[in-house]
C-alpha cells in the first residue's frame, strides 16, 4: 500500500538557533552564518534581521549595514550533527524518521495515526518540542515527501490531501527547489506556475529535460521512492559543541559542558544505562591536548554527578590556548545498578600507567602541584617557559644553548666575583607587548665554580639559570 502521509520539518536556521541556545549572549548581538566561498548570508538572527540584513545578501553589503556584525562560516556537517541530536531528542515521540541531505527532517506518519489520531495534534507536539530546544521549524504535510517539502518551504501548513493538491496549484516555479537553469528555461518558455508544469505530459518533459526533472514531475503527482536510511539512535554517546567565539578560561566552557552532560544523562536514562568513565576533549586552534578522563568509582548517569567530578579535576586549571569547542564521549556502558555513595577511587591499583600516578598525585596534592616543563618559541626565556599539563610536553623547535635549570625570577648579582666564560648573546625583542627586553647574556662561573647563565639589562647584572 503506497504510503501517503508525510510530515516535513523545515529547519531554516538550525545551526544559528543551536549556536545561540548554547551561548545565550548571542541573542542580543547581530550574528550571521555565511557561505564563505560565495560570500552570501545564509542565516541571520533577529537583531541582524531588524537592521536590514536579508538571507542571500552579499557579505559586504551586510557589513556595510552593520559594521560590527559577527560572521561565522557555515559548515554543513556541523549542522547535520546538530540535526542528528534533534532527531535523537524527537525519537521518544516519533519513528520512522529520515534525515534529508539539506539537514531537514522527514517523518513517515502512516503508522503514527494509532498513537496521535490526527495530523494537527502531531504537528503541534513536534512544534512544541522543537520550540523547547530553541529551534525554529516550519512543518509541512503532504501526500509525498516532495509535496510536504514544498509546502513546508513556503510556510503552508495543511492537514488533508485535497488541500495539498489545491495549494500546489498556485505555487510559482520560482517557489520550488528545481535547479536554477531549469527554472530559467521553464520561465523562458512561458511556464511560470507549478500548475502549468504539472499539466505538461511526461513525454514532453522527458524530451527536453534531464531525468531528475522527470522524477521531480512524477513526485509532484505522488510517486516518489525514498533514498535516505531511516534514523537509528546511536549506541555510544559522542557529541561535539562548536563555540561561536573563542573562550579563554574554564568558566566560559562550563555552560556548554553542562548542556552536553545533560544530553548524556538523557541518552543514558533512555537506555536505562550508566557508565564509570567519560572523556572530555577541549578543541583548540592548532595543538591537540589529551582528553581529560573523568572517572567515577561506581557507574553513574546523573549530569550533576558528572559535573561535580569534572569540577574536581578542572577547577583552577588554565586553558593552554583559547578554546573553540568541546567534545564529550562515553563508550563503556553498564546496566543501571543500585548506587553506592563513595565517589573517588581508592588508591590501591595494580601497575597503572603514568596517567593514573599523575591522577592520584594531583588528587592528593592539587592539580597545580604536578606539571611538565614546556616552552613556546618566544625568544624571551622566562616568557617561553610555562608549566604544561602533565605529560603534555611541548618543546620549541629551535635548539639554542640554554641552561638545564631556570630561576623563574632572575636574581640580581654582584658581578665582581664572577668570571666570564662565553658570550655575549644579545637579545633585543618583544617590542609588540609590554614585556620588551634589551639584554646581553653571558655564560659565567660563580665563586663556587658553578656554571651559570647571567645577563645585563639597564645597568644591573642578573642570574637567570645554571648549566649542568
Amino acid at each position: 500500500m503506497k504510503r501517503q502521509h508525510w510530515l516535513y520539518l523545515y529547519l531554516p536556521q538550525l545551526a544559528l538557533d543551536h549556536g545561540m541556545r548554547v551561548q545565550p549572549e548571542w541573542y542580543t548581538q547581530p550574528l550571521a552564518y555565511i557561505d564563505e566561498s560565495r560570500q552570501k548570508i545564509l542565516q541571520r538572527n533577529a537583531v541582524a534581521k531588524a537592521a536590514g540584513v536579508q538571507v542571500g545578501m552579499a557579505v559586504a553589503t551586510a557589513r556595510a549595514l552593520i559594521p560590527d556584525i559577527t560572521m561565522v562560516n557555515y559548515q554543513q556537517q556541523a549542522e547535520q550533527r546538530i540535526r542528528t541530536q534533534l532527531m535523537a531528542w524527537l525519537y521518544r515521540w516519533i519513528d520512522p524518521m529520515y534525515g534529508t541531505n539539506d539537514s531537514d527532517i522527514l517523518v513517515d506518519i502512516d503508522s503514527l495515526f494509532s498513537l496521535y489520531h490526527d495530523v494537527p495534534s502531531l504537528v503541534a507536539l513536534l512544534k512544541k518540542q522543537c520550540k523547547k530546544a530553541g529551534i525554529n521549524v516550519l512543518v509541512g504535510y503532504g501526500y509525498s515527501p516532495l509535496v510536504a517539502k514544498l509546502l513546508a518551504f513556503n510556510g503552508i501548513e495543511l492537514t488533508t490531501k485535497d488541500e495539498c493538491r489545491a495549494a500546489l496549484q498556485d505555487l510559482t516555479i520560482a517557489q520550488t527547489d528545481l535547479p536554477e537553469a531549469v527554472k530559467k528555461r521553464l520561465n523562458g518558455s512561458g511556464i511560470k506556475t507549478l500548475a502549468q508544469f504539472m499539466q505538461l505530459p511526461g513525454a514532453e518533459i522527458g524530451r527536453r529535460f534531464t531525468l531528475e526533472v522527470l522524477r521531480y514531475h512524477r513526485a509532484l503527482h505522488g510517486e516518489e521512492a525514498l533514498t535516505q536510511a531511516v534514523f537509528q539512535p546511536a549506541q555510544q554517546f559522542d557529541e561535539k559543541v562548536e563555540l561561536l567565539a573563542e573562550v579563554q578560561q574554564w568558566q566560559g566552557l562550563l555552560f556548554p559542558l553542562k548542556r552536553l552532560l545533560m544530553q548524556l544523562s538523557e541518552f543514558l536514562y533512555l537506555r536505562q544505562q550508566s557508565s564509570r568513565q567519560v572523556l572530555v576533549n577541549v578543541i583548540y586552534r592548532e595543538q591537540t591536548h589529551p582528553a581529560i578522563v573523568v572517572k567515577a568509582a561506581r557507574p553513574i548517569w546523573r549530569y550533576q554527578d558528572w559535573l561535580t567530578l569534572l569540577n574536581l579535576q578542572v577547577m583552577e586549571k588554565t586553558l593552554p590556548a583559547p578554546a573553540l569547542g568541546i567534545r564529550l564521549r562515553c563508550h563503556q556502558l553498564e546496566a543501571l545498578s543500585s548506587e553506592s555513595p563513595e565517589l573517588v577511587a581508592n588508591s590501591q591499583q595494580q601497575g597503572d600507567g603514568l596517567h593514573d600516578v599523575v591522577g592520584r598525585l594531583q588528587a592528593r596534592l592539587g592539580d597545580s602541584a604536578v606539571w611538565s616543563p614546556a616552552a613556546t618559541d618566544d625568544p624571551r626565556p622566562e616568557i617561553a617557559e610555562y608549566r604544561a599539563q602533565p605529560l603534555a610536553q611541548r618543546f620549541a623547535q629551535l635548539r639554542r644553548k640554554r641552561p638545564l635549570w631556570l630561576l623563574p625570577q632572575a636574581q640580581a648579582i654582584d658581578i665582581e666575583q664572577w668570571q666570564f666564560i662565553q658570550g655575549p648573546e644579545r637579545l633585543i625583542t618583544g617590542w609588540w607587548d609590554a614585556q620588551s627586553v634589551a639584554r646581553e647574556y653571558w655564560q659565567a662561573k660563580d665563586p663556587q665554580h658553578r656554571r651559570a647563565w647571567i645577563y645585563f639589562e639597564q645597568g644591573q647584572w642578573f642570574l637567570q639559570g645554571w648549566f649542568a
Partner: protein
Amino acid sequence: MQYSELHSLSNYSFLRAASHPDELVAEADALGYQALAITDECSVAGVVRAYREAKKRAVKLIVGSEFQLPEIGVFVVLCPTRSAYTQLCRYITKARGRAEKGRYDAQFLDFLSEFDDALLLWSPAPELEQAVAVGKRLKSYWQDRMWLLYERHYQDNDIDQVTRLKSLQRNTQVPIVCAGGVLMHRADRQPLQDTLTAIRLNQPISACYAELLTNSERHLRSLTELQRCYPDKWLAETQVIAERCHFCLSELAYQYPAELVPEGISASDYLRQLTYVGVKKRFPNGPSDTVKAKIEKELALIATQSYEYFFLTIYDLVQFAQQRNILYQGRGSAANSVVCYCLEITAVNPDQIDVLFERFISEERDEPPDIDVDFEHERREEVIQYIYQKYGRQRAALAASVITYRFKSAFRDVGKALGFTEQQLQHYLQKIDRRTKAHSWQQQLISDDPTLANDLRGRWLMQLVDEIRGFPRHLSQHVGGFVIAATELSEWVPTENAAMAERTVIQWDKDDLETLGLLKVDVLALGMLTALRKMLELVNQQQSEPLTLATIPQEDSKVYRRLQQADSIGIFQIESRAQMTMLPRLKPATFYDLVIQIAIVRPGPIQGDMVHPYLRRRNGQEAVDYPSDETRQVLQRTLGVPIFQEQVIKLVMVAAGFSGGEADQLRRAMATWRSRGQLEKFYRRLVEGMTARGYSNEYAERIYQQICGFGEYGFPESHSASFANLAYASAWMKTYYPSAFYVGLLNSLPMGFYSASQLIQDAQRHDILFLPADINHSQWDYQWLAPDDAIRMGLRQIAGVSESRLLDALKQRPAAGFRSIDELRKCGLSSHDIDALAAADALFSIAGHRHQARWQTLEQSDDQLALFDGKAPTSSTTEMLMPQASEIEDISEDYASMALSLRRHPLALLREQGLLRGIKTATELPHCRSGQIVTVVGLVTCRQRPGTKSGVTFLTLEDETGNMNVVIWAHTATQFRVPYLTSRLLWVRGVVEIKDNVVHVIAGRIRDETEALRLERVQSRNFH
C-alpha cells in the same frame, strides 16, 4: 680603521629587508664606510635607486646579489668589473627563468662556471658536513676571487661558527672576511622587519617567533661597534675586496638600436632631414619665424644631448602605425616639442598652446625625454608584436612596475601581523576618509576608537603603517613601457618571466631607466581612438573624399553650441556627470577653452580651489588682475588663475627665479608622495624668491598652497591639449554624423563612462531609430543603415553568444535568411548559443515569439533523451503553444539577456499604470522653481563619490524621459542607509536647485522601490 659593508639587502628583497636602498647608502655614508654593496636576493632591482643616492655621496656603491642554496649556504656575488656585472645579470636571468614568477632556482654547479670575473663570499650552511670538500671545489674555480664569510649577530653559537670557519680556512686556504648581513639601515627598524617577516609568512607575529630576529644587529653598525665585534684582520679584508671593485652603473651608457639610421648618414642629419619633410606637411604655407627658430633650437639641443635615436625609434613606431592605419596619438612631455609635431608623433600644433620645451628636454636634467604614445586599444597588440618582431625578444622587454604598499594594503597587512581580526580592520578602514586633509588618519582612528591611543598594538599600528607605505611588494609588468636595447638586454639588466605568457619584464622600472638615461617607450591603449577610427570608416563609406582625424574642420561653432548645452554623452573626456555640470557654466567656445574644460574638472584644481575664481573671472564677476607683468605673460590664457602644471613651473621660474631644471625637480617632487619632505625644502626657496621680487607674502603662500593642492593631480597642459583634440573630434562626429558616432561607440564597448543602454537612450532622444537584433538581419557589430538613417542592433549585445561560432554561422546565412533552428544548428551554433539568441527574442523571424522559440530550442538540446516508459521518443506532432510574453515580461527578459531594451522604458509602464502619480519626470524638472519641493523616481544608473571633504554622493536617476542628478549629503546617506546602499529603483523627495541651467535635486528622504518591478539586469556603475 677602514670598513666596507659587503652584504646588505634593501627592501627590493621583498618582505625581507626593512630599508629603502637610498636609506642604506645615506646611512653608510654618514657612518664613514668606504663602500657599501647592495646585494638583494637574486636581483639587482634596487641598485639603481642606491646609485641615484650614491652619486650625491662619498661612499662607493658596489653592485652584487645574494643567492640562498638550501644545503650549501649563502653565496654573495660581487661585481668588480663590467664583465662581472654582465655575468651576474645573465645568471640572475637564468635562475629566475627556471622558476615561476617571484622565485628563482640557483644550483651549486652554476657557481663552478658562469662567474669568471666576479667575486664570491660564501657563508657555509650550519648543517653542511663536507664543507671542506665543497670549499675545495669552489676554490679550484674561484681561486683568489673567493672568501669565507663570517657574520656575527651575537647569537648563542657564535663561538662554534668561528672555530668552524677557522678550521675550514686551514683546510682550504680560503681567506675569511666579515660582513653585516644587513637588513635595515638603523636598529629602530627592527619592529618593521619583524612585521615584514610576519607578512611574508602570512601569520600574526605571535605565531612566528621562531623566524623573528632575536636582536637588531643586522643594521649598519658604527665603526667602533664593528671593531668590538670582529678581529681587525677580517675588517681590513673588507677593504681589500672593496678596492678590487670599481664597476659603476654609469658604465651602462646606452647604445641605441643602430638599424634605425640608413648607411652613410649621421643620426642627427637623418633626423633633420625627416623633420623638414614633416615641416612641409604640417605647415603647408611655410612655418612662421618663431616656429622655425624653435625647430632649430630643439634640433641643436637634441644633437648636444645625442638623443637623436630616441626620436628615430618613436618615429619608426609611428610610421608603422600609419601604414597599418592604426590611429595613434603622442602625448606627455613630448607634446611640448615642435620636432615631434613635425615627425607626426604628436598632433598638438605649437601655435595652439605656448610650448615649454624645457619641460621636454633640459640640459640640467640630462635625462632622455619620456614620450607616451596612445594606440587604438583593439590594435595595440599589433604594435607590441611589431616591436618584438623588429628587435627580437632578447632586445625588447617591458619595464617593470614596482607594486608598492598603498595605505589600504599597508593598513590591512600590518593590522593582521599585529593580530587584529579581519573584521576589526574592515571596520576601522570604513571609518577613515583618506581624502580629507583636515586631520591625519591616525587622529580619525583615535576619535573613532579612543582605546587605541593607549593600547600598545594600536600605537604600533599607527606607526608601522606609515613606515611601510612605499615599500615594494612585488614586481609586475608595466602596462606598456618598453625598453629597447642595441645589444642583448640581459647584458645590462636581468629579465624575469612576466605574468603574461612568454612576455619578459626587466628588473628596473621607469624611474630607474630614466636615472641611467636609458630609452623607454610607452605604448598605451585608448578606447576612444578605436571608436573614432570606426566612425571615420563609416563616414568614408558615405562620401567620396576621405575624412581623417587631421582633416576634421576645426573651431566649428555648432559643435561648441552642443557642448555648451552639456549634450556631451559619449564625447571623450567631458562626458562624466561632473563635466556635464561644468559645461554650461564654462561655456567652451574655442579649442583652448576645451583644453581648460578637460583640466579643470580634476581633484587638483578642485582642492586648490581654482575653479570658482576662474569661472567668476570668465563670466566677468571678478576683475582679472595679475600681480606683475611676468605673471601676466604666464597666466594670461587662464585669466590669472594657474590651472596647468606648466603654468606653475613657468610661474616659479618667472616669479621666484627658479632655473628650468630646479622647476622640473619641483614638478617631480609634487608628483611623488614620499618626497613630501623635499616639497618643504622648496617652500622656503619659493617664498624667499617671490618676496625678494616684490610679491606679497600672502600671494606666495597662496601659490605654495596651490602647488600642494596640485600634488599628484596637477594636469599637464600638453596632456590636456592632446585629449582636447580627441574630445573635439568626437563632439564634431556627434554633431554632423550622429548615427556613425553612436555605432562607432557601441562597437568599441566596453569603454568610456556609459553603458550601451544609456548610449542607446541618448541616441533615441536625438531621434535616431533603432532596429532590434535579428538573426536574419543583424551582423555581429551594430550597423548604420545609411539610407533610412537607422541603426540595426548587433548580435554582440546578446550575453552568452560565442563570437567565433556566430561569425561562422552568419557567413553561411542564405540570402533569404535562415528558416529553422535546425539550420542554425547545422551552421555550427551550439545549443547554448541558440538558447541565448532565443532568450533575446532574436529568433523571432524563424521560431515565433520568444517563449515559443525558447521552448522549441529546448527540444533537441539535451542529448541524453529521457527513456520514458520504454517508448522511443516520437517527434512531437502536436506543436505545444506557449503563452505569449506580456510587455513587462518582454522588457525584463530583454534586460536579462542584453542589459537594455528597445521596448518602452520600465518607468513608462509604471507611469501608465498610475503608480507614479505626482512624480516629476526628468524633462519636467528644469521647468520647476529653484527651491521647490519635488519627488522623483528613477533607476539608479551611476553612483559617484568625488573627493570633496563633505562626503557627498552624486546619484544619477534614469527615467523614460532622461537622466536626473540627485545629491545625497553624508547625513542623509547614513539616515537612509539601507535604501542608499541596496536599492536599484529609488524614490527621492527633496529640493530642486537650478543655477545657470544646471539642475540638481538635493535629497531629503529616499525610499527603495525596487519591488515595484522585477528587473534583474539593470546594473548601476559605481565610480568612487
